[in-house]
């Protein structure tokens, strides 16, 4: 079953165009959304969350268009970004107490406690008192605590130490076993190699590839190249084209 389908998503800015972005993600799959800075990853994700209004295109979750079912869809997905700082002077406890009221049927106190412990988070601390890496973990904890069927994570591993990154990738694999789909953007190629099933590669606002990672290697990698080498070569070729 397709968890999310994006069709012909287009958004034009004065200096950048997201051009007919299309891809889909099935349940229980981990998809890595990869591309260099400014390629259109965040704009795509923001459009998929209705934070950015696309000029045209269609976004369908669980067979429902986002446009008419926004609240229902958002209750079934978890989102996290590593870069934004919510309510820096409020205690994590207070933020969580508000957030969980929006998930009356799906908030999972057990998962919440599990991730609080796993990420060594203290409820009495404020986001201002957290390091950048701990803020990422705090956002992840919120996204993971309400039995989301799809996790959308914008650069979740940026700012994390190698141990925490490894731990997080294990969490993704565990969630996949439970049937949860994970869609995460990254520019750390090794993260993709460790856990992703599918690769969605965006370059200059266009989807350059959207396929299982094994197929991507067969189609694009040259002999002796690892995935990082392949991406670097493809980006250079795209720049000189």
């Amino acid at each position, binding site marked *: 079953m397709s968890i999310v389908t994006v069709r012909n998503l287009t958004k034009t800015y004065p200096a950048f165009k997201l051009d007919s972005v299309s891809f889909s993600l099935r349940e229980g799959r981990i998809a890595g959304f990869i591309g260099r800075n400014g390629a259109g990853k965040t704009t795509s994700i923001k459009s998929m969350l*209705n934070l950015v209004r696309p000029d045209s295109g269609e976004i369908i979750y669980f067979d429902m268009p986002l446009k008419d079912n926004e609240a229902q869809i958002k209750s079934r997905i978890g989102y996290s970004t590593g870069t*934004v*700082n*919510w309510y820096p002077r409020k205690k994590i406890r207070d933020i969580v107490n508000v957030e969980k009221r929006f998930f009356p049927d799906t908030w999972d106190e057990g998962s919440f406690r599990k991730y609080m412990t796993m990420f060594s988070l203290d409820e009495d601390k404020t986001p201002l008192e957290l390091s950048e890496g701990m803020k990422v973990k705090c956002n992840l904890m919120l996204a993971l605590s309400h039995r989301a069927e799809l996790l959308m994570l914008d650069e979740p591993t940026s700012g994390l130490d190698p141990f925490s990154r490894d731990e997080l990738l294990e969490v993704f694999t565990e969630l996949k076993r439970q049937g949860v789909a994970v869609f995460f953007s990254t520019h750390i190629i090794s993260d993709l190699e460790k856990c992703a099933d599918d690769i969605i590669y965006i370059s200059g606002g266009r989807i350059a590839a959207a396929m299982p990672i094994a197929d991507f290697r067969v189609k694009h990698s040259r002999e002796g190249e690892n995935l990082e080498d392949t991406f670097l070569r493809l980006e250079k070729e795209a720049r000189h084209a």
Partner: protein
Amino acid sequence: MRNILYKEMKLSASVLSWLFIAFGLMFFIPNYPVLCGVFFVTLGIFQSFQNARETNDIVFSALLPVAKRDVVKGKYLFCCFIEMCGFLVMTAASVIRMTLLKDSPVYLGNTLMAANPFALGMALLIFGLFNLIFAGGFFKTAYKFAKPFVTYIIVCFAVIGVAESLHFFPGLEKLNAVGTDEHALQLSLLAAGAVLYVLLTLLSCRRSCARFEKIDL
């Protein structure tokens, strides 16, 4: 909508929004333009908008499982809640002035606007203008609030000036009725203020919802 109002109160409201409700008690001050209390209540609400912008509240709210337009409705609900709290304080002060303190020498020599139903109607009109000009202006961008607030201040004090002056004009003395005198006229003016408040707020909220849908966060 109850949850989004709860979120407004717990996470994005400034403590000044709550404290400035007490400025409704300015309706007790004799020989003072009592409608300034209305401005201070709205100044408290402005602090919450400022707080919301600084803490990324709008994006946090838009990511909650609510429709994007519900973020706007939550802000308007919060405005209305604080405004109604301020209005209740002003109403209580006015009722006490009109009954228990009706014959108090402090108020008998009051040359400025009396605290009466007309003043309360004007208070509602100013609250409605705050919702129309400031809240409506804020949601054109969801982050710029200086211009809408300055515009609101100018309009607010112009309305206060007009309201304070009206009873000096011949034939309009009844607007400054003390006690329960002229109660039919006074209550009609209060009702008119209430109708304008509802209309201005609904108009502004609908327009803001439509604008916010188009904003890229």
